[in-house]
């Protein structure tokens, strides 16, 4: 029986904006579910544009934000369930560790970076200050290609972005977590140096048997590194499955649009797409949130939220286009493209 690496079940998160009288409710996460089971460590990518809810999901997973409903398990251990913290804080820190987008934001400009490494070794790993902690730090730094001497006494601005992100990775590794949550970890790094960090993730996955939740809007690196992929739009999962499968044979019209829009070297764009700017009303749609922009939208798309359809094992697509014919009462309304 394979382990559950990550199980996200019916997560809801509602943000209230606006005034006391005129409340605007944003369903930042609207019933998000997906689950990955595996014997080996995996990289799961969470793909979405701004406003898709990928950052909110990350915060829920890190327990920086409390969900209104739903549960999350990591390595068969429940982290949150029904809004309750079901795991003590210190155990969470040994199970899940984050890497943030901008390494210069992730370290306090007034503190030397080694202090974060030492805090982690002492406060999370419960190692004694001094040699014991420093030994663990040095060992971990070496696995990301740095030495203790490179970082000690240095402030963040004395590093390049790539180097600092390595320090950030090393810090996350010190407790030997089962899952590292990486939020756009390479978007601030120059394209030619990006692969160094991405390849480092691959190496860590093997060496430390650590799984990754990789949050990004960049389909190319996601394709390169991930085993599984979830596509989010307006707080809903659109499509989920094995990474190569989803990106090579996208089923959901939104995934197709996303792939069409990536400026990729080697495939020229053809026509201009129909565009929709960020619409806050989309968050409140009763049906499919993509219905307004979808070229294949049917009447029922606007009224009925599509359920997960599993065209094959381990693949989920939330789209009425792929519903069984007997369910499809208005299939004559549109030709399936």
């Amino acid at each position: 029986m394979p382990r559950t690496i990550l199980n996200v079940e019916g997560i809801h998160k509602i943000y209230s904006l606006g005034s006391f009288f005129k409340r605007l409710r944003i369903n930042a996460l609207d019933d998000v579910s997906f689950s990955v089971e595996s014997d080996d460590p995996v990289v799961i990518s969470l793909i979405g544009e701004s406003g898709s809810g990928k950052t909110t999901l990350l915060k829920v997973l890190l327990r920086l934000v409390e969900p209104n409903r739903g549960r999350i398990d990591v390595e068969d251990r429940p982290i949150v369930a029904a809004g309750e913290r079901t795991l003590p804080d210190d155990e969470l820190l040994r199970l899940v560790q984050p890497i943030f987008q901008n390494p210069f934001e992730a370290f306090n400009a007034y503190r030397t970076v080694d202090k974060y490494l030492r805090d982690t070794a002492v406060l999370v790993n419960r190692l004694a200050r001094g040699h014991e902690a420093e030994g663990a730090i040095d060992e971990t730094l070496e696995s990301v290609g740095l030495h203790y001497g490179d970082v000690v006494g240095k402030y963040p601005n004395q590093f390049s972005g790539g180097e600092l992100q390595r320090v950030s990775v090393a810090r996350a590794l010190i407790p030997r977590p089962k899952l590292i949550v990486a939020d756009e970890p390479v978007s601030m790094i120059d394209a030619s140096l990006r692969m160094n960090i991405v390849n480092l993730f691959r190496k860590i996955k093997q060496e430390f048997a650590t799984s990754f939740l990789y949050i990004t809007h960049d389909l190319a690196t996601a394709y390169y590194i991930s085993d599984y992929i979830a596509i989010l739009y307006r707080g809903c999962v659109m499509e989920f499955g094995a990474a190569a499968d989803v990106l090579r044979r996208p089923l959901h019209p939104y995934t197709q649009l996303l792939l069409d829009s990536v400026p990729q070297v080697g495939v020229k764009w053809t026509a201009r797409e129909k565009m929709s700017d960020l619409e806050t009303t989309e968050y409140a749609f009763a049906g499919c949130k993509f219905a307004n922009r979808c070229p294949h939208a049917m009447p029922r798309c606007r009224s009925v939220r599509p359920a997960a359809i599993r065209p094959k094992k381990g693949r989920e697509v939330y789209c009425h286009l792929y519903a069984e014919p007997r369910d499809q009462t208005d299939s004559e309304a549109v030709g399936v493209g």
Partner: protein
Amino acid sequence: MKSNATHVHGEAASRRETVDISLRDVVGTYTTVRGTVNAVDGVSLDIAGGGIIGVAGESGCGKTTLLKLLYGNVEYPLSLTRGSIRFNLDGMPITHETIRRYWFRRIAYIPQSSMSSLNPVIRIRKQFLDRAGYSQDNVFQGARGRRQQRETLERVRQYLRELDLPVEVLDSFPHQLSGGMRQRVMVALATFFHPDIILADEPTTALDVVVQKGILLLLAEVQEALRNTILIVTHDMGVHYQLTHRMVIMYAAKIVEYGPTEEVFSRPLHPYTKMLIESLPKVGDDRVRQGAKGKPPSLYSELRGCRYAPRCPKAQAICRKQEPELAELSPGRRAACFFPEE
């Protein structure tokens, strides 16, 4: 752009073709607390004919500085310490000194951040008019000023319709528009006067890919209709591939390669360009990619020879001693390398 675009732009379309930009040994220097640094260090290039020209390179390579110098946006701490920049618009010469007179009417600019580049407290309409010169001041000039303002506003509306933009944006404040809409407003602002040259600095960096595609295709359509020159600076090689006709690659304050985009991608001449292209992962490509080794040299230090030599797999003794010229290696293709790729 809709079918009537050719009618509106008919007059504009006929006058292009003879635009060229000429850079001679341009040096742009920043004064910083650590001393002076040449962010653009001796760049010479002639760009003739219209089309979309891309300027590529990674952070700190000098591409944004080059754009500032071109536009004449040279303010402390940046200064043009050497060289000359000339534009030739249908036989009319424009130099670094006179460019300000032609800003937006003949040479326009699209900034990176549309959110912070629009005045938050005045309506979009007024931000169109203040450049058109028909702002509140003219209203005080009586009926004539008011009529002129009305006419200009009507032309602005007409133009927005051509670009498929909702006319209502004119009455909005910037914070009421989405990021994509604001950036399209910036494109509309920059192209309203049908300029001969448009300079764009990372115009889609902060946007989502779907919106980015729309903006870039809009730029491409505008260029086709106006037949003018658009110079676009971006670090995203995919954008260059999709949009540009020719491209300039910069590294450590120098131009290392220049040529037609398709050829640069299919057959890069400079080892740096090659590395840049090969480090990009692609959807559907399962090969293992390697990131670049090392990092660009600090521009504060004394630099000798080819600036890429310390990282270059093909570097020889001469590369470290002598600086290679940006030489024309085949018609329309230039590279600054002693041992260009075959």
